């Protein structure tokens, strides 16, 4: 067997993909093929070990493309319109971020920009890039670092929370003003649904799906 050598020079033989370790309690399992809709759970701590993937690569790419379109709409279209005495104010995501920056809450502006714009964008572009090559059965250029990147930005996208935030804001502003939700909110709502579907996809299977090219 040709052992892959790790970047730091030590040989570290991997035990192929027949074994599975529960990430929450370190229990070792032998991998079993999952039937449609099956979820493998750890018998010790009940964490999810693996899910059966309903969605194929083509469908995933279609989903990413769909999310991209909705994401553009969510950012271009205004989110809420507020009217008072005939005056109207609309706001978009970047209007919010810019306003928080000006109002001496730069930390909040950076948080909002990162969790609502940059991280989701980065996640989608990365996934799209990986999927385009995966459909051809190949690892995309930069595969390793992008997969590691995906792992780290995973928990930092908060579009779903934002949708709820918009809802609360509408109710709060409604106490004093006329507020109407704009197309952007609906785009965000659709985005939140897409993101929920996405979070059910285990990206890690790309590692096994795509063989490492001989170096």
């Amino acid at each position, binding site marked *: 067997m040709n052992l*892959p*050598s*790790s*970047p*730091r020079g*030590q040989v*570290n*033989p*991997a*035990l192929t993909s027949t*074994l*599975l*370790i529960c*990430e*929450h*309690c*370190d*229990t*070792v399992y032998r991998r079993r093929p999952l039937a449609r809709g099956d979820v493998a759970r750890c018998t*010790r*701590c*009940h*964490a999810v070990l693996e899910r059966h993937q309903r969605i194929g690569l083509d469908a995933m790419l279609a989903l990413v493309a769909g999310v991209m379109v909705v994401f553009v709409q969510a950012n271009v279209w205004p*989110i*809420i319109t507020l009217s*008072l005495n005939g005056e109207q*104010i609309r*706001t978009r995501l970047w209007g*919010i971020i810019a*306003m*928080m920056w000006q*109002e*001496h*809450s730069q*930390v*909040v*502006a950076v*948080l*909002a920009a990162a*969790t609502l714009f940059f991280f989701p964008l980065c996640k989608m572009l990365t996934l799209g890039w990986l999927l385009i090559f995966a459909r051809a059965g190949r690892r995309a250029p930069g595969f*390793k670092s992008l*997969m*590691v990147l995906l*792992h780290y930005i995973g*928990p930092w996208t*908060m579009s779903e*929370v934002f949708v*709820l935030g*918009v809802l*609360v*804001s509408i*109710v*709060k502003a*409604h*106490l*004093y*003003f006329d507020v109407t939700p704009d197309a952007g909110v609906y785009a965000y709502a659709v985005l939140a649904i897409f993101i929920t579907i996405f979070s059910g996809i285990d990206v*890690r299977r790309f*590692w096994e799906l795509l063989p*490492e090219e001989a170096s």
Partner: protein
Amino acid sequence: MSALPRAHELGLIGCHVCGLVCRDTQIADAACPRCGSALHRRKPNSCARTWALLIAAFILYIPANLLPIMRTVSLGDVDDNTILSGVIELWVKGSPDLAVIVFTASIVVPMMKFLVIGTLLLSVRHCGTTWARTQRAKLYRLVEFIGYWSMLDVFVVSLLTALVQFGFFSQVEPLPGVVYFGLTVVLTMLASMSFDPRLIWDCKDEDD
């Protein structure tokens, strides 16, 4: 030994990043052959890091609640809102159901995180206890899952600030409380990420 073997008993390490099962080579700076991330039996200094982040988050949580997060100026009427008074206002004037959601996201969830992560940290000290392990593991996953919903109020203040800008007679301004609150959420998220749930199961036990 129980019927279910654990990775360290078999001399295996699961990669934290890509999940690959690797042989434990006992070398200090071993790297995962598949993704190149450093391999650790457990997250390094998990307890110390989690304590540090949790305590920092708790310190910031105090001004986040005591300081107002938002100022509404309406016809010369200046009104400063804290997180709790915002919830009360929503309950009284708006819709009670949303008030419950906001209360849960901005008060219950952060408090629960402090309590749960603190309890987990105490319980894994000195090799831990076998007390309610499955429940503790579930609690950890719950906390990890709901943690980021606390950002709700931060987004609400930002949205209202951007919207309500009618010049001198009607305005919303963010106040420092919201910055502290945002930082609290980020720090509690980092704290739950740096905690290693495997520690819950790391003690000499006869069986589960």
